[in-house]
């Protein structure tokens, strides 16, 4: 597959996404208007005079019909202007981007570990359906599926911080005793390592352990279930049956099942990644992580809808981006998809 073909594929896919993105941004736009709260009054503040309120209304084009408001809003968004927080009055985009690395760090490590554990467990469970391993892993997966994220986080803090004192308190990304490193990547651990500050790196890593473990557990549950289902489907396929008729040794069979399961599993892990950025927000909330998720949740709770709008739009864009990357990965892994493209 040449670079040109990949470029063509991405360009066409991006074009297909335009209508989706318009609908998505319209939904975000409507979010603020749903409750009938007057954003102008919020923006102008409680002491504003009628004239001030009118001025804000005009500058935001809120006196125009809905479609015109949407056009103005979308135009601003396309220029990177997501408005200002109703509470802090700082630009929403900057606030979000500043906090993004902290969230991505949690999410990628968590889902990465979840996949590293969940995929082999799911494959092993499928080898002997209804066997002891399968029964146990299925139950654990259902349990993980049913456990509220925030409660798991609270339990982790209770056991590993309060009872055992193995983990630091859930108060942010680095110990309060340690100065955070200068910003390079946005990840405290890597930034500290890059600057050779071992103490800070160790503290940042220690803070990561519990929240990452929680996300890993939450993400592994559906990955186990789905990997098992995918592997079972592959195992019952014509080609696996025919491979058995060819007397292929167990090792060849395993490799074949693995290869053929990988494409749907990768697709599923991608959708998981997109969905779990929501769940990560709850983990951030409990551990006071200070990432974009905690920021967004707080805005939702406080009713700061300029931020909510930007946050939700950013999550949607993240999902779309993840799906695009997954599509690309599938195209590289799968000869049939490459033929279709």
């Amino acid at each position: 597959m040449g670079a040109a073909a990949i470029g063509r594929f991405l360009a066409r896919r991006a074009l297909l996404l335009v209508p989706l993105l318009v609908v998505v941004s319209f939904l975000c736009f409507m979010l603020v208007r749903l409750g009938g709260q007057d954003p102008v009054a919020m923006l102008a503040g409680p002491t504003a005079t009628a004239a001030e309120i009118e001025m804000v209304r005009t500058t935001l084009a809120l006196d125009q019909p809905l479609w015109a408001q949407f056009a103005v809003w979308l135009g601003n968004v396309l220029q990177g202007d997501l408005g200002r927080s109703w509470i802090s009055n700082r630009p929403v985009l900057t606030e979000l981007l500043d906090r993004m690395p902290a969230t991505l760090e949690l999410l990628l490590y968590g889902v990465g570990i979840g996949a590293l554990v969940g995929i082999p467990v799911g494959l092993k469970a499928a080898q002997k359906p209804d066997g002891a391993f399968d029964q146990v892993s299925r139950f654990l997966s259902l349990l993980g599926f049913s456990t509220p994220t925030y409660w798991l986080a609270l339990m982790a803090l209770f056991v590993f911080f309060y009872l055992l004192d193995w983990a630091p308190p859930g108060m942010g990304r680095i110990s309060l005793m340690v100065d955070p490193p200068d910003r390079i990547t946005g990840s405290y651990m890597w930034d500290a390592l890059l600057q050779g500050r071992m103490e800070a790196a160790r503290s940042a890593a220690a803070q990561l352990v519990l929240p990452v473990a929680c996300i890993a557990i939450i993400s592994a549950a559906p990955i186990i279930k789905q990997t098992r289902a995918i592997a079972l489907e592959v195992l019952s396929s014509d080609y696996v049956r025919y491979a058995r008729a060819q007397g292929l040794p167990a090792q060849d069979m395993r490799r074949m099942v693995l290869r053929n399961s990988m494409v749907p599993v990768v697709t599923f892990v991608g959708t998981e990644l997109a969905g779990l950025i929501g769940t990560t927000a709850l983990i951030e909330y409990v551990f006071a992580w200070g990432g974009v998720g905690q920021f967004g949740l707080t805005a939702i709770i406080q009713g700061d809808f300029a931020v909510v709008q930007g946050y939700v739009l950013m999550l949607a864009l993240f999902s779309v981006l993840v799906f695009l990357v997954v599509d690309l990965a599938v195209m590289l892994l799968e000869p049939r998809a490459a033929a279709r493209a």
Partner: protein
Amino acid sequence: MTPLLEVRDLHTHFIARDLDNRVRVARALNGVSFSLAPGRILGLVGETGAGKSLTALSVLGLLKPPARVVAGQALFEGRDLLALPPNELNALRGARIGLVVQSPKTSLDPLARIGAQLARVQRAHRPGLSEAAAQARAAEMLAAVGIPDPERRLRAWPHELSGGMAQRVLIALALVNEPTLLVADEPTTGLDVTVQAQILDLLRGLARARGIGAVIITHDLGVVAHYCDEAAVMFAGQVVEHGPVGPIFAAPAHPYTQALIAATPERLQLRARRPSGSPPNLYALPEGCLYRDRCPRAEARCATPPPDVALQGGHAARCHFAGTIAA
């Protein structure tokens, strides 16, 4: 001469529990017996549900629960396949015994090139064979099954092949390790009519040229008449009549065979016009002859199990009246 494959009184059942927790047994094979001499071609024929494919899967150890062989023997070159440990049977499959199935397009590993699949089955059974040698042999084999430009086709993906081409690849896979027995399960189902004849010609030619014994499973009496040396007619999980093709078509001895042949003008397939009536309920098989509910000649003694009556020239039928009635 010792037979290449001899199946003796094979019984396979589907054993499951229903929602009321009662054990339900579907008796799918009820004493299948036939034998095949080296280098001969046997046509295993019967209507859908008669147990043809199930016979092949049972013999090759490819059954999946709830299907289970409950009795019988399958002697391949003197060894009982049904009593072999799984790994020894696995070593025979794909090496000494080749299988060709229907739906060739979905039976090829979608994520491996044709050459890789041909090399894989060789190296699985011949430790020490180099990848290069396996690929060279794979190209030879593709040429032997009539695939043009074999060197280039080695690099093809399964989805790039037509149905007929994929079936040729399956035949190459089945024969690449020089087996002595080839089992072809409905090898032409789903292919174009012109391609069907090509594939069958190819199968017969290769079997003849290499001295391979072959079992062709089909619902098409015409295939048996044109391509096989021997025939075994199956009904309700039993072989009701077997013997050389000539005598069976000239003087069918079992009423079911007679009905089959009567319902098959020239090359009409059984699916289009099968003898009237449905196969018996496998959950509650009648005592005695399984065909008697549909048989125009059924009498009181048909309620006892019919004997295998030997006729001239290796021809035999499982019927109380065999040899006494004419077509």
